[in-house]
């Protein structure tokens, strides 16, 4: 239910990072997501897709490093291309 809020925070962090690299565009974001983080993976994917659609970030690939029995909810990395 709160995946849209989580997705918005991810997109916000991506935008902040992109502004630090003039001329580059974000191609992929990597998240670390624990089983116990309270976040549904498919719902989060869907929300990120919706938020990116029609913006300068589209297309943005998503890689989720799922951690069984973990509580992580982290943005691990961003891939940029010129």
């Amino acid at each position: 239910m709160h995946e849209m809020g989580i997705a918005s925070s991810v997109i916000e962090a991506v935008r902040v990072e992109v502004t630090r690299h003039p001329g580059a565009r974000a191609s992929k974001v990597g998240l670390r997501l624990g089983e116990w983080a309270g976040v549904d993976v498919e719902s989060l994917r869907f929300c990120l897709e919706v938020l990116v659609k029609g913006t300068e970030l589209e297309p943005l690939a998503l890689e989720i490093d799922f951690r069984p029995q973990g509580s992580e909810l982290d943005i691990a990395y961003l891939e940029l291309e010129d």
Partner: protein
Amino acid sequence: MERVAIERKVLSENDRIAQALREQFARCGTLVLNCISSPGSGKTSLLERTLQGFSPETRVAVVTGDIQTDNDARRLARFGFPVRQITTAGACHLDARMVEKSLDGWDLGRLDLLLIENVGNLVCPTSYDLGEESKIVILSVTEGDDKPLKYPGAFAKSRLMVLNKIDLLPYVPFDMEAARRNARSIHPDIEIIETSCTAGNGLDSWRQWIAERMRLAAGSPSHA
């Protein structure tokens, strides 16, 4: 292609506020408990019975979260202790900023116990640190005894599981042993108290549990 490490918590802003709250609660010696459960497990009833058992001079306050209505705050205010309602207007959980705002004007130095009743939901509230000392998960026997397995996050992160509505055990196919076993398979050290808010079972154990945590919170080294 260039990969830049970000290594940042998605909820870093929430965590920052929660940490500041936790430090403030510790300085003031205020025990803060974050009560989490599905809708209808008896969070408000448990808090009603808790407040009912306190003497009038007990320095306790309650913050209660709901998506809509201030019904719970009105129920809880009958006992004469300060109560504030957070109406989240759609959000399925409380976050640290909502709690911070709800405390406005309260002198934490004059509070020994702050009870937070989260929005009824076993998933989303587990993602948001509120600066609490302990999370408490409430499971009622009218739910499934496999809920700890279905919603492991809430049970993994809670210090205590309250098994509520045990007066209804004769009428429902709830296996208490299975519920305990399932909870411990997720969180081996979870403490468990069995209660009935209508019949009164277990409420003494629950109050003793709170009293013990309050003693620890008041005596913690960071308490100035």
